[in-house]
């Protein structure tokens, strides 16, 4: 198994506040990896560093053999890293279709945009039905599907999902997790950033638990007991 993404000793700050301390983790290709932790544990901050929207004060991020630390977001997307950010962050005033097209913005992705759009419509027929509606008018679950579809439009090799289940009905969450597994089986490496310990442990192969900006526990999900994760999660 080759390592697709390697995060080494990342320190990240908001002003003087250190949100991430010496965080390290590896993501193997074709796997599902969970990053678990409470609100404010630094998960989203770490994802921002990987995605390039926040600079790290020290540490390195590697994508295969390329050092991508400090790269601007548009170059990182072009490499094949795409994300479904917290809350979806769809373009509310734009139509569903335009949202999806924005997902294929990078020069590399534009060439495959047509095929990618067909594939996304196949995966989420609902998006085809509502193609011309403003995405701001959709329900929370539908907006997440727009966000997932949009992330797929660049034919990424790695997608991270940030708090995908936040504020959604359980049946919708179940459906979305089934889609995530399906995407993974089609060869896309996945990082799940979650507060929901049970569900993410059930889905992933490897898990990292973060607390107050540090990675406090890691291992194969089959080796981690819920109790151990629970303790690390709350810092007991």
């Amino acid at each position, binding site marked *: 198994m080759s390592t697709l993404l390697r995060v080494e000793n990342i320190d990240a700050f908001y002003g003087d506040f250190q949100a991430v301390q010496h965080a390290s983790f590896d993501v193997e290709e074709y796997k599902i990896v969970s990053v678990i932790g409470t609100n404010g544990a630094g998960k989203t901050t770490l994802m921002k560093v990987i995605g390039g929207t926040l600079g790290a004060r020290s540490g390195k991020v590697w994508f295969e053999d390329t050092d991508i630390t400090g790269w601007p*977001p548009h170059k990182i997307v072009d490499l094949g890293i795409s994300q479904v950010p917290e809350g979806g962050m769809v373009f509310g005033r*734009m139509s569903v279709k*335009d949202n999806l097209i924005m997902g294929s913005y990078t020069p590399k992705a534009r060439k495959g945009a047509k095929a990618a759009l067909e594939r996304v419509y196949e995966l989420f027929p609902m998006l085809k039905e509502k193609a011309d509606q403003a995405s701001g008018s959709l329900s929370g679950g539908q907006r997440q599907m727009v966000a997932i579809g949009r992330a797929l439009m660049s034919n990424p090799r790695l997608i991270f999902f940030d708090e995908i289940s936040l504020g959604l009905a359980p049946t919708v969450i179940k459906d979305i997790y089934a889609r995530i597994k399906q995407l993974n089986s089609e060869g896309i490496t996945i990082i799940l950033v979650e507060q929901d310990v049970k569900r993410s442990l059930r889905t992933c192969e490897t898990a990292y638990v973060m607390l107050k900006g540090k990675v406090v526990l890691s291992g194969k999900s089959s080796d981690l007991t819920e109790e151990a994760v629970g303790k690390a999660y709350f810092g007991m």
Partner: protein
Amino acid sequence: MDAMIQAIIQGILLGGLFAAVGVGMNMIFGIVKITNLAHGDFLILACYLSLFFMGSFGANPFLSLIIVVPLMFFIGFALQATMLNKVLNRGDEPPLLITFGFSIIIQNLLLYFFTANAQKLQTPMLLKSISITDTIRIPVMYLISCLAGIVIILLLGVYMKNTYMGKAIRATSDDNEAAQLMGVNIKTTYGVAMGISMMTAGVAGVLIGILFNFYPNSGSTYLIIAFAVVVIGGIGNIYGTLAAGIIFGLAQVVGGQLLGASYQQLIGYLVLLIMLIVRPQGLFSK
């Protein structure tokens, strides 16, 4: 009665020009979230650029657009890339101060190179008009200006809807962080948006230079018109700008017709003031 019809025609036509004056400012408001205090001065800069290049085009201000419009794009892009982009994350004041600085610098450069004398872009077109009846006439230059305003706005609408860059500009205006996650380089996007805004200012400026006298410090007059059009139409709404321009133009000319020409500007700004009280988000804002 005929005088009133004449005033209404003139108001609508002037409104199309006002829309062209305001649409670029509205874009920058909505997309880059900057109040470009130099927008009026850029219009006047375009007047002087046209004046300067008219020698090379057989003294035809319309032909000078071939150079003025691309040049204005370049100026807008360069200023955004070299200055405004540097202060994007530092709050609202620094960009505001920079545009205020542009305003002062442009005015003084124009004063230095062209003196404070009144200028006008001469074209025989100004004197032509189409007679509808014996007393009602459509001045051809007003008609051209209005059509130019409409064409600019329609082209902008098509560009924003159908091109990757246009979509990226809208996406950036919606949520610039999410746009970055899509691979949009928002600094380039802002540069292009400012460039396009300056292109519209270039066209509007040349039309204004043909219709009215201009001086190095005429910019503030047009800045206020642009402001009014943006406020009435609603920030970020390109088509609203067109309607707003026509409302503002009508208010000025028809109001002036009713109360006397000296009240023309006052009435325009009263409409603006009423708008700010009654519907501060603009008529067409979603």
